[in-house]
């Protein structure tokens, strides 16, 4: 194992053909004395094929940064561009796959129906969306849960369905917020493996926010968030060997 290369944060903003580029992005919540800076002056970028772990303590701004990169939130200052996606992801359903930290399945829909949603929102036919959803569930080894409602799933199963949903539309950028936070170590490892496999298969950029060093170590790049700032980025050279 070679020593990881350490660079100041934000250098990747100059990457060629990046999927997403953040430039001096800040995001504040609240007003007046209650104002909280969740993300401060972050500049970063994600290229196709990137495998990035965003680490840091709770409240350090990991989730907010992922939401900003997913286009779900708007920065208070700075700019975000998605040159590799052809524009903001909100106008292109399926271009970004998001795995949320908490339960995010629609309770009225089965695992298969939930997984098919991004494709449907992308304007695909129900049949096409269903077949891609079934394929995604199969890839994660949970095709037998297709007809189960979210209330009938364990936390781990629900999280795997959520990952399947994020992958079903074969997104160019996958943003996963604590995807293993509610899973045991073994299941968490399986989930990360599935994420990496799919990301490899479709050559997507993968950004995983995590507390778990065992997860972070499986990704080639690590961004450390500290009090809203992207403090340090670390590159690993021998990631393929660590994957097993």
């Amino acid at each position: 194992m070679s020593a990881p290369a350490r660079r100041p944060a934000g250098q990747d903003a100059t990457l060629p053909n990046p999927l997403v580029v953040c430039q001096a992005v800040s995001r504040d919540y609240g007003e007046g004395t209650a104002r909280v800076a969740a993300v401060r002056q972050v500049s970063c970028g994600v290229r196709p094929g990137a495998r990035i772990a965003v680490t840091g303590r709770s409240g350090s701004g990991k989730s907010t940064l992922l939401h900003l990169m997913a286009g779900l939130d708007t920065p208070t200052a700075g700019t975000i561009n998605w040159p590799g996606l052809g524009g903001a992801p909100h106008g292109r359903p399926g271009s970004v796959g998001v795995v949320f930290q908490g339960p995010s399945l629609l309770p009225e829909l089965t695992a298969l129906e939930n997984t098919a949603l991004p494709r449907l929102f992308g304007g695909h036919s129900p049949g096409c969306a269903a077949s891609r959803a079934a394929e995604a569930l199969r890839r994660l080894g949970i095709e037998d849960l297709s007809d189960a409602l979210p209330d009938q799933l364990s936390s781990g199963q629900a999280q795997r369905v959520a990952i399947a949903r994020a992958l079903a539309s074969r997104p160019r950028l996958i943003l996963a917020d604590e995807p293993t936070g509610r899973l045991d170590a073994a299941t968490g490892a399986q989930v990360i493996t599935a994420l990496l496999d799919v990301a490899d298969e479709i050559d997507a950029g993968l950004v995983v926010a995590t507390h778990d060093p065992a997860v972070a170590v499986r990704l080639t790049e690590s961004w450390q968030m500290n009090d809203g700032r992207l403090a340090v980025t670390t590159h690993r050279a021998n990631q393929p060997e660590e994957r097993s």
Partner: protein
Amino acid sequence: MTLSWLCGLLRRRVTRLLLNAIGIAVAVALLGSLASFLAASRSTMTDRAARTVAVDWQVQPQPGGSPSALLEATRTAAGTLAALPVGFGHSTGLAATSAGDGAASTQTTGPAEVLGLPPDYRAVFPDAIRGLEGSSTGVLVAQQTAANLHARPGDSVTIGRAGLPPAVVRVDGIVALPQADSLFQRVGAPVGAQPSAPPDNVLLLPDQQWHAVFDPLAGRGADAPTVQIHAARSHQLPPDPAAAYTAATAAAHNLEARTAGAGIVGDNLAAALGRAREDAAYAQVLFLFLGAPGAVLAALLTAMVTATGSGRRRREFALLRARGMGSARLVGLAAVEAGVVGSIGTLAGLAVVAVITRTAFGIGGVGATAAVMSAAGGLLIAVATVLVPAYRDLRQVSVAAGRMAVGPTTAPRWTRWGLDLLLLAGAGVIFWLTGRNGYQLVLAPEGVPGISVSYWAFTGPALLWIGAGLFAWRLVDLALGRGRDLVGRGLRPVAGNLAATASAMMSRRRNSLAGATVVLGLALAFAASTATFNSTYRAQAEADAQLTNGADVTVTEPPGATVGPSASAQFTGPGVRSVEPLQHRFAYVGADLQDLYGVNPATITNATALRDQYFQGGTARQLLDRLASAPDSVLVSAETVADFQLQPGDLVNLRLRDARTGALITVPFHYVGVVSEFPTAPKDSFLVANASYVAAHTGSDAVAAFLVDTGGQNVNVVSGRLRQQVAGSATVTDMTSTRAAIGSSLTAVDLAGLTRIELGFALALAAAAAGLVLSLGLAERRRGFAIATALGASGGQLRGLIASEAAVLAVGALLAGATLGWVLSEMLVAVLTGVFDPPPSALSVPWGYLAGIGALTMASLAVATALTAGIAGRSSIALLREL
């Protein structure tokens, strides 16, 4: 803990608490308004009933009794304002000689009644006699008698006396006796033994003159004159018609007891109050039939509002239970919530009642009973809709189940039992059983203080409400369960490629969606049935008024006038659509004197509405065509057909007065059909013939009345103009005054109030049900919409999903509401047939109001959809941060 829970509720769930309170306020306001109005209108009914009586008591001395002692006893009876003796003499017949066209002729009548009136009779009993022509004092001839005798003021009339030479008097005036039926009643005789009609011939004499004519007949058995004592009584009676009836009856009995049977009281006041108490009982019936469903609906709506938050409450309670809080404590928290919601809702509802009673009804304030009753109702609804579901959840739902985001999708247990079908069948059976009794809901037997109301009849509509509601639930459940794919296909125009997803989402939430559809459907059915019932009632009241008055405006010529049909032209003018002359004669059918109306069958309907139910054996048009088919055709009453064994085409010889000679002549007619009602005609037997034929045979085309059609518009303006035009030479009456004169206390007071209250509340309930249920249910799922947005759903796609739900709700509720509304209307009109006069042959559907209700519902749903879609579309960062 309780305080912090309450503070938390007020801080975070204030909208839902307020909506709950509004639902309770609506129920309290509806109940309170109806109860207040019912209480206030009862006293109006008493006043109105008492005012309609011309002579309160007619005290008949019994053989051996002293009329003067009875008069004194009547005068001194508590509550008597005045008592006067009235003489009743029997004449063998009247005769009058009049100058015809050049030659004098003598007309005679059969037996007649001659009354002797004290000088101040008209002052004490102003409504007993109505002057038509000439003086209103002196010798007065009743209208029909004057027609029979061809008598005019100034003519002499000979009074035949049994065994004595006739007496001659000079006529001073012609009068009408509006309450001849009660004036000539057989005092003390039961209803069945009363004369079927008042005497044909009546003469009124000043008492001194009467004594001079009839005193010589004293002691001559059946021909001996009698004296009756007429009394005016104080109308300071208890406000409730039933109590007033009891008080009036007791006073009459008291007089009979004090005079030791020397006299029997013909208690006209109690009879009128008896009818009013029947009206009051019907008002109560209407309150229950038409008001109770509204209050229950408001409660259901409140329950729906609560139910849309039940998932949140279940999850919160499950969390608290998982952390160790006991069930009793949790029930206590729910009780606090129910108490707060119930108190706020009840107070707000009572405030609304106070405003409604002052502004809409003009009543001073809310009655104590009404306030207590409606407040109790409000608190009960709060307990039933907030506390009971919480308690039930705690008893029946496990912690794990409580944390489920989607409730069970299995059909409720009652669907397996077929409870809805059983209830519908029960409603049908009870309706059929009630129909066998002629829908006699209220029985107020004369002379009996108690009123019997058949509350059993309420069971039919009640079971129909519940059964139909559950059946609608079953259908929605079926459509969204087994018929989910079909629904999905139907939603494609709304949701596009998300149609199947939308139907899947609705399918999993079909219990709550079915509940919302049922509540909205019932609200629409309530609005539709109430409006249709009220419209039918109004139409029948209008028909009754038109039947009595003849047309929108009627110009009635005085007795003996010779105005011909050509005078119609003088009554045309602005606001008048058409004028139709109506002949009136008296004709003898055998020995029976009947009214004969001469019409032009081709044009009579231009000025007055002839309904099919006025005729038998065909429609109005068919019977008029039969009348027009031959000039000598005549329509007769069913009673005459039975009495004279008539077959269609039979020759009927009528004796009519020839205007040229004044003598009775025989005119041949042919019977072609049966008429049971006709504008201006009396309730008993009468005839309808071709005016031209009658005129040709009697030598006179004199018109009795001109029927003026204004199209229902500007009635008062036209009648005012015509009154000025005729300047007292004829009488002008209009629908407005007739409606006020003939309307029962129920027509005039209660239904108008009920209509205002109920149609307003029905509108509010339908709009609230549509908007609230949809938007609240969707607001509960904002998190879901946030997820959908995060997954890339566009605003249009979110709108499509929400609109799909609104579409299913609208289609289901409109279908359920229209069907149930129609069935309920038919049932209500049939069951409440006792309040109709005449009974309707078909429903009168207020299409405008119904279209308005439909449009308001759709608009309400559209607004709720747009608002919810707007909320859902706004990317909620707070919600996303929770994901």
